[in-house]
């Protein structure tokens, strides 16, 4: 199957936008990715091993969190697993002209 890598994390996959792995489940696919690119792990999981709250895993068009089998869902060679950090924010701006960093 193919794992699509979002732009900010490609630095950890030798700039590859997609990585092909052999796997039977989502968990196996992620494990294969991390075995090949160990530096990727801390960007995906918290130190205590939980998927970071802002990271979304999509199996084709389905949120893995809401699949009946979750990360143990079966995958096919033709499937695509997308790693998608969330996008949110808005309003209540800091004072104009304030340092930005």
């Amino acid at each position, binding site marked *: 199957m193919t794992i*699509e890598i*979002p*732009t*900010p994390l490609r630095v950890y996959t030798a700039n590859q*936008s997609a990585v092909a792995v052999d796997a039977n489940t989502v968990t196996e696919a992620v494990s294969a990715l991390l075995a090949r690119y160990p530096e990727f792990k*801390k*960007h995906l999981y918290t130190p205590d091993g939980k998927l*970071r709250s*802002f*990271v*979304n895993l*999509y199996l084709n*068009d389905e*949120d893995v969190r809401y699949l009946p089998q979750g990360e143990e869902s079966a995958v096919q060679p033709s499937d695509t697993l*997308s790693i*998608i*950090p*969330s*996008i*949110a*924010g*808005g*309003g*209540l*701006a*800091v*004072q*104009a*002209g*304030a340092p*930005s*960093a």
Partner: protein
Amino acid sequence: MRLSQQVYDALREHGEQTYPHECCGVLLGRFTSEDGRSVNDVEDAIRAGNTRTDSAHNRYNIAPHELVKIQRTGREQGLDIVGFYHSHPDHPAQWSPTDFAEAHWIGCSYVITAVEKGAARQTNSFLLTGATEDDKAFQNETIEVTGQLDPGLEPELKADIA
């Protein structure tokens, strides 16, 4: 970051159309390098829906499934997600603590347009720098608008004149 006048106008108009709610969208393009500095070269601005209907006047959220589709569309065109845009209705075009806390796409441009009483005013861009969540930071970023009718005018001045 660099974008065409057409794309620049489009993302600002989006903010006017959704006022008094925040608009949001994705910037597709290429990561390029010029004179040793990285430039996010935007080809297209893709409108996205704001899922924060509970507080759309000061919050935005793009549904992940929409991001997946936009990323897929971009790939088919040879483009990457290089940034995002949203509006601040009746607030300055400065990033907010919420913007910073919710920013996770390091290396991408976060464009904010202030929309005052329905009219787009200042548009600023902030590059999310760093290597991890622990050392990320927003850095002011110059917006280079190409194909301007009058290159002698700053985008903000043009907006005011318009």
